[in-house]
């Protein structure tokens, strides 16, 4: 039972990441591999504030969101100079830079030693350290993120994002300053990713630079593509599928020693197979 709770929490956290990345990749067509970096920023911000400065969880998350959004603003500005393939590569580069920051800014992050002893959240005096309660917290965050994303999707802004994905140059002729829209969605998505990061840090109670790793960006992207581009519901399924599947594999008897690598291979293979046989994913109506 504990195990299922654990899985549910992890799935919720990654679902938040999937839904938010979908706004950028699925709706706007920006192939960003930097998403995990903002997740990492949120994790570190919240961890540092709660563990070293005794902040409450909620305010620490707000700071995490703010820092991630600021970073996204800067990174997004640079990324906007690129398009298509180069965008992906550049975002990959930023992912690596942020990882490097986590690793080397030892004064702030303790580098590869990581940050242990992150407290479980306490909000308005209520403690969320029990798994059941934490799951509720995680689900509430997911619902919040999902609701905001749906709202974005249904607004005129959402329609503009899709048009950017379809033909940005033509859209500009009709009076849209597409750069601002791209920046806006990138920044909003990064804020959501930061929430996931803060949740993760508080749940696992320990983080290290690997939290912002490129591989996680690839994983999240796989979730978005698998679930279906521009399908927010799909991203939740994508998260469910890609978290649960490797766990099932463990039951089938794959050695734990190579578990991490096998997981990577699974994700990579799924991406390749999806591209070959079903680029629109499970619930998506839009092909990459």
């Amino acid at each position: 039972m504990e195990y299922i709770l654990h899985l549910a929490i992890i799935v919720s956290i990654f679902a938040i990441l999937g839904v938010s990345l979908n706004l950028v990749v699925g709706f706007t067509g920006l192939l960003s591999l930097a998403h995990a970096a903002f997740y990492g920023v949120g994790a570190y911000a919240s961890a540092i504030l709660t563990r070293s400065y005794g902040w409450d969880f909620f305010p620490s998350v707000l700071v995490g969101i703010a820092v991630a959004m600021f970073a996204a603003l800067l990174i997004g500005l640079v990324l906007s100079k690129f398009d298509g393939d180069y965008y992906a590569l550049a975002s990959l580069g930023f992912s690596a830079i942020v990882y490097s920051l986590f690793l080397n800014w030892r004064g702030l992050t303790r580098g590869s030693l990581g940050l242990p002893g992150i407290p479980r959240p306490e909000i308005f005096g209520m403690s969320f350290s029990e798994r059941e309660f934490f799951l509720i917290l995680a689900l509430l965050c997911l619902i919040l993120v999902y609701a905001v994303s749906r709202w974005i999707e249904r607004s005129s802004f959402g329609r503009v994002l899709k048009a950017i994905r379809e033909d940005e140059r033509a859209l500009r002729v009709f009076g849209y300053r597409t750069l601002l829209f791209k920046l806006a969605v990138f920044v909003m998505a990064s804020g959501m990713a930061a929430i996931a990061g803060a949740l993760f840090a508080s749940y696992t109670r320990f983080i290290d630079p690997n939290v912002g790793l490129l591989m996680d960006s690839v994983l999240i992207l796989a979730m978005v593509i698998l679930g279906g581009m521009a399908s927010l519901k799909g991203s939740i399924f994508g998260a469910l599928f890609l978290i649960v599947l490797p766990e099932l594999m463990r039951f089938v008897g794959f050695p734990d020693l190579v578990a991490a690598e096998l997981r990577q291979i699974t994700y990579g293979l799924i991406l390749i197979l999806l591209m070959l046989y079903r680029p629109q994913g499970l619930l998506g109506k839009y092909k990459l």
Partner: protein
Amino acid sequence: MKISVQQLSKHFDGVHAVDGVSLTFESGTITGIVGPNGSGKTTLTHLLSGVLPVDGGAVVFDGVELTRVRPHEISFYGVTRTFQSVRLFEQMSVRDNLLVVLTERGVFASLFERHGERHLKRAQELLLRVGLSGKRDELAVNLSYGQRKLLEIARVLAMDPKAVLFDEPFAGLFPEMVKIVVSVIKELRDRGVTILLIEHNMELIRELSDHLVVMDAGRVLAQGEPDGVLARGDVIEAYLGG
């Protein structure tokens, strides 16, 4: 809303696509632009609509120097266009293709706007006008070639323009569709809109143009009253020779 083009030029790798072109387009008139392939007609529309930056010269519209205006703002002055290679938002519905042109342009404004009754009504009107009302929920990518061109026309109307640049709007259309487009263009002209019409179909050019410009190798070869211009020796030469 006169468009005044002054010494406009654009070159690519040393080739002058548009070479010192000066023209005037009056409001409430249709100016046809013809010429052999590569004569610079489409490049001219790209320059006028801000898709390409100019290398030299100026475009003045309604007293505003469009060449100094940021590309995405050109439409604010009422200039709109169709594309020779029809550029629609493929994986969006016909209705959404129009809605995106009818709704708020600002980031914050659009974030807090949900399309309302009046937007939907307007979209429906426009689709009716071009004969696409049955295709409202169809994805643009699934439309036939002719239907795609009609959608582009509807999109132009949605912009409520003061000037329209039509780039080969009739190519590949069935006769019934041609009639629709002809009536739309005439209606715009009667409303006082300044119209540029690039077209290869000479019959339609003769029927529609109040004024005709012939381009060749990036320059204006001749201009004037359509029948007169088309009878000129050097114009015929350009078409046969090119």
